[in-house]
């Protein structure tokens, strides 16, 4: 019978000899898969039996001194070793490539997550129990950065910075891509590498003998490595890391005058078969600032759903298996997990009974049997849950159930780091403020907490200020529910809604802010100063900073920023930027009394800003397309200010004159439409005049006529009431245009016409549709026939009476 080895064209005898050579090496090598509880169980036994003097672990060499804190009795996984590197002197030449500007040092960071059942974590704990020293042997991530490129480190079990966007578990990928695994998956019917791993090594009593387990895993990895693409191994940094492994191991043994038999190595199974004769030295570690610490991590972050490349697909599921094994109940995993999922499903609104739980466990066992497994693995359990509990399409009716499955698989656990590690002052300040302001609840679990503050209440105000400051520092803890443009009109000026969710990046991010100051306030002040300098002469950005300074309660800075705003308004000539500034200033004007702002100065700023914006308007009359959205938005905010009235410092006629000038000079149909549409909104031209501009396209040549769609798009982009008031004339004009257009011209015009009408809200659409209906003969009588309701005289009288009473109520409401 042909095996996967034969199919993958591997010499089984040579492979066995290679495995024997490595497993019989004087230095004891133990293969692992990151976050595997089964590996951890066997490894723990091996370390306690062998009692080595040194355990070499595939962990980041730069974090060696953190090991005592990782295994401290106060530390509770999930945690992560955090390592960041700043290339202060641009030795990698990546400034301006991997950083926003050439004068900003590029920064790279990595997380090395550890769960309670991660083999590396268990190995550290077991080593401590037998008095062995632990040495981290992995190459620092920043030593793998390729010069003049942004290729991120690709390390096993490592979460690389999100912005790199690449998977960071190359050995898992290499195994899954290997010829041996591909053949095995085909023969055994594995749909994923996770399914294969769980079937072969993780779930059920695969073997109780650690040595047999070690041999089986080593053989598997040897076959995978022998059938991997050598170019992939060459290109992903695997060889450089392995060279660092060997160098560290050899140097440590020499320095401490130890025999290889005194030590053991714990590393990814793929690395067991590294080239021991490779004489190439590992890459040098570049100079720069390196910072490492241990931070609390979460199950969600470790899970694959969070997008973390080295993820574990179900951290809570494997944690439950680990806990049950340690309490002597390994066979209860299926039942415990099914009951947990169904309990969660009930909370999600999905009806699931105990009978369902029984059916699921029976189904999972039978499914595992059919698939050739002695014990159900996660895939079987999930399939059984969906089969027995989802009464319909899993993508539709089954969504609450699927959500319950995901939530139960992943869990919400967040780790804790020993207080002995010490915290930087800014981190301490953060935790103290959270505690003082009763916001500590967000730290317990990685779940969303929603809060609403009334800023007129002093305590709420303090909470709001802290969250605004954290938001300004980009600390990923809190998000403000934005209500653009609605603040004033909806009476939300003093109300804020926040969403808070703890994130393992909070602490590392605060650590990075320490360069700006030792407290949150000091860091905010420094950053605001830096930004003011960067925003010089940009009215919109500077006024946004003024608004932030007020939200963040920085009274000492407000006067300074206000002055900077005046200078920026005077210097800025950009229409969009000036309009943005005006938007910020008018919101601040509403705060003025409450915030003790100097209102006279603010009114002066608004007047200056308005005038400058009006005069800058003709400059954008023929702006390129990529600026149109910004211009329309700016025009609308300016028009809103004018139409709202009630301000002496805003002169309607000045605005109207400049819009008219812009319309006359514009060569861009979309913008011309927007300007004329705005004039109609301002009642400076009649709807009929506006419609005449649309109809005029019907008389033009085809190459001009196709631009009618753009023009109309511009009109409808700014229209509010004028479309409704002038619906009849507009429909007539469009009708005239469409009748004049050839089929091919119409097809060209169509996308923009569609885009234009998609801008309208329901009432505008109704208004236009009614006009079209009237124009094409759908009379009131016909409409009556369509909606004719056959009813008794009594019922009709009752309806008429209700109608009358509703009308009366609505009159009282002044509709």
């Amino acid at each position, binding site marked *: 019978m042909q095996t996967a080895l034969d199919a993958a064209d591997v010499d089984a005898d040579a492979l066995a000899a290679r495995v024997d050579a490595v497993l019989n090496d004087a230095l004891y090598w133990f293969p692992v898969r990151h976050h595997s509880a089964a590996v951890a169980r066997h490894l723990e036994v091996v370390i306690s039996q062998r009692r080595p003097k040194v355990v070499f672990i595939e962990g980041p060499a730069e974090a060696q001194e953190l090991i005592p804190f990782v295994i401290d009795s106060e530390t509770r996984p999930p945690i992560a070793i955090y390592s960041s590197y700043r290339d202060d002197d641009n030795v990698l030449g990546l400034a301006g490539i991997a950083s926003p500007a050439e004068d900003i040092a590029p920064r790279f960071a990595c997380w090395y997550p550890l769960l309670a059942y991660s083999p590396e974590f268990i190995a550290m704990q077991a080593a401590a129990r037998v008095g062995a020293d632990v040495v981290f042997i992995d190459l620092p991530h920043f030593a793998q950065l390729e010069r003049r490129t942004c290729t991120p480190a690709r390390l096993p079990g490592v979460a690389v910075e999100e912005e790199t966007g690449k998977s960071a578990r190359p050995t898992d990928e290499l195994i899954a891509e290997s010829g041996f695994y591909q053949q095995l998956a085909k023969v055994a*019917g594995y*749909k994923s590498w996770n399914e294969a791993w769980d079937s072969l090594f993780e779930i059920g009593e695969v073997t109780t003998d650690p040595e047999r387990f070690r041999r089986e895993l080593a053989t598997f990895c040897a076959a995978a490595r022998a059938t991997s693409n050598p170019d992939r191994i060459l290109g992903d940094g695997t060889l450089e890391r392995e060279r660092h492994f060997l160098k560290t191991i050899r140097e440590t043994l020499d320095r401490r005058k130890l025999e290889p038999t005194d030590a053991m190595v714990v590393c990814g199974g793929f690395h067991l078969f590294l080239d021991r004769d490779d004489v190439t030295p590992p890459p040098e570690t570049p100079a720069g600032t390196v910072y490492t610490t241990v931070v609390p991590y979460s199950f969600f972050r470790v899970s694959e759903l969070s997008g973390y490349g080295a993820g574990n697909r179900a951290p809570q599921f494997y944690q439950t298996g680990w806990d049950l094994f340690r309490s002597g109940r390994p066979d209860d995993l299926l039942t415990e997990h099914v009951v947990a999922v169904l309990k969660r499903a009930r909370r999600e609104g999905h009806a699931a*009974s105990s*009978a*369902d739980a029984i*059916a699921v466990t*029976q*189904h999972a066992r*039978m*499914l595992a*049997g*059919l*698939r050739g497994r002695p014990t159900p693995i996660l895939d079987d359990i999930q*399939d*059984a849950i*969906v*089969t*027995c509990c*989802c*009464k*319909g*399409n*899993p*993508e539709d009716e*089954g969504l609450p159930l699927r959500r319950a499955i995901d939530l139960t698989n992943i869990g919400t656990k967040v780790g804790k780091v020993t207080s002995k590690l010490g915290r930087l002052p800014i981190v301490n300040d953060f935790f103290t403020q959270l505690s003082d302001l009763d916001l500590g609840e967000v730290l317990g679990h990685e779940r969303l907490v929603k809060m609403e503050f009334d800023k007129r209440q002093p305590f709420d105000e303090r909470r709001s200020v802290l969250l605004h400051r954290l938001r300004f520092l980009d600390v990923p803890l809190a998000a403000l529910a934005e209500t653009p443009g609605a603040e004033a009109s909806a009476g939300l000026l003093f109300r804020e809604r926040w969403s808070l969710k703890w994130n393992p990046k909070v602490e590392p991010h605060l650590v990075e802010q320490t360069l700006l100051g030792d407290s949150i306030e000091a860091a905010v002040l420094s950053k605001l100063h830096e930004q003011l300098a960067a925003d010089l002469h940009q009215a919109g950005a500077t006024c946004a900073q003024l608004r932030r300074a007020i939200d963040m309660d920085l009274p000492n800075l407000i006067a300074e920023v206000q002055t900077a705003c005046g200078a920026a308004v005077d210097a800025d000539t950009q229409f969009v930027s000036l309009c943005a500034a005006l938007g910020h200033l008018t919101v601040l004007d509403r705060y003025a009394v409450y915030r003790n702002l100097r209102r006279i100065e603010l009114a002066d700023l608004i007047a200056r800003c308005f005038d400058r914006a009006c005069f800058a308007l003709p400059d954008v009359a023929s702006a390129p397309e990529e600026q149109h959205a910004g211009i329309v938005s700016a025009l609308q905010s300016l028009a809103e200010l004018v139409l709202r009235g009630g301000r002496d410092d805003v002169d309607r006629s000045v605005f109207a004159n400049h819009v008219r000038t812009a319309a006359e000079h514009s060569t861009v149909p979309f913008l011309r439409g927007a300007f004329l549409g705005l004039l109609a909104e301002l009642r400076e031209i009649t709807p009929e005049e506006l419609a005449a501009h649309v109809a005029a396209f019907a008389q033009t040549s085809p190459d001009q006529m196709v631009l009618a769609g753009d023009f109309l798009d511009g009109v409808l982009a700014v229209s509010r009431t004028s479309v409704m008031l002038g619906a009849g004339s507009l429909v007539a004009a469009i009708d005239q245009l469409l009748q004049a257009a050839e089929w091919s011209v119409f*097809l060209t015009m169509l996308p923009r016409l569609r885009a234009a009408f998609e801008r309208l809200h329901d009432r505008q659409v109704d208004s236009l549709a009614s006009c079209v209906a009237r124009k094409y003969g759908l009379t009131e009588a016909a409409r009556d026939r369509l909606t004719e309701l056959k009813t008794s005289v009594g019922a009709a009288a009752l309806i008429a009476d209700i109608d009358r009473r509703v009308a009366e109520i609505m009159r009282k409401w002044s509709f």
Partner: protein
Amino acid sequence: MAKKTAKEEVTSVAGSDQLREPAEIRYADQLEALRQNDQDAKPRSWRLSPRAVLTYIVGGKSLKAEIGGKKTDVPITRKFFGDDGLVERAIVTLASERALLLVGEPGTGKSWLSEHLAAAISGTSTLTIQGTAGTTEEQIKYSWNIARIIAEGPTPQNLIPSPTMIAMRGGLLLRFEEITRCVPDVQDSLVSVLSDKAIAIPELPDANMLWAKPGFNVIATANSRDQGVNELSAALKRRFNYIHIPMIADQKTEVEIVQQRSSELIAQYELPVKINPPILHMLATVFREIRQNKTSDGVSLKQPSTTLSTAEAIGVALDSALYAKFFGNGAVSPSDVARNLVGSIVKEDTADLAVLKEYNTLVARKRGASDKAWKEFHDTLAGQLG
């Protein structure tokens, strides 16, 4: 005996006097080969083990077997294209306490899968109740020979068993097609069949209960478009495991299905016609793009009211072949496909004409500029649509 190819098999079906043979007859050789090679344990009354049933449905390697006294290699062809995990879940359900309900859009192969499961597990796929608005409780349970009742009174001999009763007596699978077309009262008559595994016959005091033999179970099908028409009661729902059959996920598989099924049908109708792969590819593309409201090059399209299932595409392929044979030159052309497309897409809602027109104008015409086959398709369809 030489290895029998799928084509030869089809031909043997074509040679039959029956317009359509049930799966257990059509694929008798494969079922027998699997039975002879089956080493695994079988649930009681099952003809094959669950693993052999799975192989029959999803296909496997050729098996040596003695068929009609001769040793031969029998290829086990794939009957159901889609997720194998879904078939595994269906088989396990049928071996469990719960009944199986296959739900999905029309034309996704629910009845096809149900027939093959019944054929492989029980050796018969004909114990079937077709659910309609007129289905009665008697059709599900039993009825009486009225003439003999009048003469002799109720006796076991005067009872006319339903397919349910026959399946229960034999430990076989009952197929219940379109269960949600039946009114709720009639559906609920299945509750005792599924929970007690028994039918009460109060008219027979000495034999008033019929108990099902081990192996009895029910495979029902329901169209997801009928949801809400006659929703199953909560009591019935919890006695079924639902398996949702999705639309085919990828173009390659859909082309494969259309190719295999249309070849079988063309052989069955004894049509000396061949549909070339590019034509089938075009047909699958049209169906897929209109169904998904988006073309492969990103053009958004209107949503049709029909499902445009793979079964419909197979129907168009067969209609095109018939047209090519009787009115054309024997080879199916893009024009034949276009000609037979309208009836498949435009059914109860004439607004679907606009959908087809939009597709023809915005997509087919553009492709026709650089591709002769698409041009022919566009021109014919434009003529059809007026």
